[in-house]
């Protein structure tokens, strides 16, 4: 056992806590939610990946088409420049020659623009180098072309032909070679790009397969975990039920044995005298009452579990609840020789609840304190007002404190589970059903409150019932009416 003040420090229930409480009750739903979320995330990832690959492919296609068009246009216009120049050689009509010269210049302008555009788009050093080479060679060819055109227009055909053969043909051949280089470079880049897209596509497929495999494994594991959790829960529940039956049988056997023994003594005439007979009768009555109380507790727990319990909600004084609980446990406390301290703050506000249920809840807590405080024989009941941590929500706290054996920290989370019994108390032959605390918590929650525990092994425990205080100006009748409404809704 470690330090005290273990979990469940009194605090208002936050929405987050309520959500966590719901999730703790439905782990399978939570797991399925996680699986669903993972599936959605994976789906989005896959869609994004596929879209990226698709965009890459589209861009590559667009670049391919655009690049092919650019190169084709460059080649065509370069040929057109030369062709128009040569056409001018075929006529003596100056008007036609001028027209051909004009066509040649128009084509040459397009080539120059195309080269400039290519250089503008070029990013790689080899692209820029090839582009500049093309620009240089094209300018050189244009100089020759201009001279050839001038000679043709002047009428010096022979001179023009010589100039074209000696200068125009080699320079245009260099231009053509440059264009081939551009095309080759482009083909190489397209191949690289295609390889990259292919690699990207393969990566996408691998990722997709990996993600699908992971999802399948995760989903399978989740289903297995859910099934196993349910199975373990069922096994645990069956074990607890078996223990419960054993415990109940044990609880019933002792008083029944006492009753049977007393009855046999009476029947056999062993009991003599009126006084002895009265003592036997008292024993039988007490044992019968114990059995009746036990059966009532079981039935009450069953009714709270089935949510079919009906409470009569009304405004209650805190002292009234404590009085009833102490009165009902007075005999038990007296017989056990316990001293009970009672500290109730004056002028506590009322609460809305069912008197019988709340007093039963307190009785369970007092009964536990008696049961697990054999040596010290001291119980303290406190009632106080906790000014709300959330403005407007004041809270009444009724605490039952003992100096008994306490509870180990590891057992605290299970303390309110139905049929749960601490191994320590079971081995110590302390009888119980494991229903008292779950029943008390069910009642507290039905009254819009909660039940918390602070405990330290070997020092003692304090169970605190937290109940919301009624509004100050709440009329009694109205509160009673709302209480009935609340009953109807439950």
């Amino acid at each position, binding site marked *: 056992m470690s330090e005290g003040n273990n979990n469940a420090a009194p605090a208002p229930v936050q929405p987050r806590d309520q959500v966590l409480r719901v999730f703790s009750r439905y782990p399978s739903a939570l797991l399925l939610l996680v699986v669903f979320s993972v599936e959605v995330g994976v789906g989005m990832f896959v869609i994004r990946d596929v879209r990226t690959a698709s965009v890459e492919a589209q861009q590559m296609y667009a670049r391919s088409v655009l690049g092919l068009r650019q190169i084709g246009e460059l080649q065509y216009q370069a040929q057109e420049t030369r062709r128009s120049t040569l056409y001018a050689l075929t006529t003596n009509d100056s008007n036609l020659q001028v027209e051909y010269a004009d066509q040649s210049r128009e084509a040459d302008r397009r080539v120059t623009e195309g080269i400039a555009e290519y250089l503008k788009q070029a990013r790689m050093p080899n692209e820029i180098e090839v582009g500049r080479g093309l620009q240089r060679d094209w300018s050189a060819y244009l100089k020759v072309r201009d001279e050839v055109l*001038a000679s043709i227009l*002047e009428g010096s055909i022979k001179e023009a032909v010589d100039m074209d053969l000696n200068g125009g043909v080699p320079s245009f051949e260099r231009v053509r070679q440059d264009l081939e280089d551009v095309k080759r470079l482009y083909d190489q880049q397209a191949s690289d790009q295609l390889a990259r897209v292919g690699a990207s596509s393969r990566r996408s497929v691998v990722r997709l397969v990996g993600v699908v495999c992971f999802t399948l494994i995760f989903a399978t594991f989740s289903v297995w975990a859910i099934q196993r959790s349910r199975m373990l829960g069922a096994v645990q529940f069956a074990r607890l039920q078996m223990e419960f039956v054993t415990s109940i049988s044990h609880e019933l056997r002792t008083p029944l044995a006492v009753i049977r023994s007393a009855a046999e003594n009476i029947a056999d005439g062993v009991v003599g005298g009126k006084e002895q007979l009265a003592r036997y009768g008292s024993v039988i009555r007490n044992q019968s009452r114990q059995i009746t109380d036990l059966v009532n507790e079981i039935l009450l727990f069953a009714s709270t579990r089935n949510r079919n319990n009906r409470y009569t909600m009304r405004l209650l004084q805190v002292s009234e609840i404590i009085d009833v609980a102490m009165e009902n446990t007075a005999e038990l406390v007296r017989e056990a020789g316990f001293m009970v301290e009672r500290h109730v703050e004056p002028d506590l506000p009322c609460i809305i609840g069912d008197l019988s249920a709340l007093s039963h809840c307190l009785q369970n807590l007092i009964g536990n304190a008696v049961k697990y405080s054999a040596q010290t024989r001291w119980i303290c009941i406190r009632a106080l007002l906790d000014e709300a941590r959330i403005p407007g929500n004041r809270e009444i706290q009724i605490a039952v404190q003992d100096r008994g054996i306490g509870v180990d920290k590891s057992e605290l989370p299970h303390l309110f589970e139905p049929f749960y019994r601490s191994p320590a108390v079971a081995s110590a032959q302390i009888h119980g059903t494991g229903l008292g605390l779950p029943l008390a918590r069910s009642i507290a929650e039905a009254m819009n409150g909660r039940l918390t525990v602070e405990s330290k092994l070997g020092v003692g425990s304090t169970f605190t019932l937290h109940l919301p205080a009624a509004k100050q100006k709440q009329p009694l009748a109205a509160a009673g009416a709302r209480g009935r409404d609340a009953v109807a809704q439950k």
Partner: protein
Amino acid sequence: MGRWLILGVAASCLLGVSNSRARAGSTAPNDVKPSEENLAIVVNTSNPVDNLSMSELRKVFLGERRHWPNGRRITLVMMEPGQPERKTLIREVCQMNESDFSQHFLHGVFTGEVFVSPKTLASPVGVRKFIFNVPGAIGYVRVTDLDSSVKVLRVDGHLPDDKEYSLHIPPAPAQDQ
């Protein structure tokens, strides 16, 4: 002797007429009618020549000069016969009529006195484009047909926008006359 006298009188009469025309052109440039347009002499933009006197211009257009100062061969660009621009150039620069001009070139080419044969183009746009393509070309267009593809030469130091500029295209006669 009498024949020489008659020739002398005739020559002096012709000179007198031409001088009077020249005087009229130089002293009264403002006589250009508003409907008249000036004729611009244009060359390739690479041509270093900026100014020609009327006599130099006449030599050029009569094919008596072969090269420009930069060594480029001179190429004459004329518009087709009948065009007002051509008529003006032949009349004002060459001081001939169409048949004399044609005769001059036929004779000159035959005798070797003329070194350049003019290229004939149908439109001012053709003239401009020709001159743009041929560094040694010279031609003429109306001022309204000018653009930046060609260079305008000064004639006797005057640009076509100047009042003293001497090449004017007379307005076309009315069609019903």
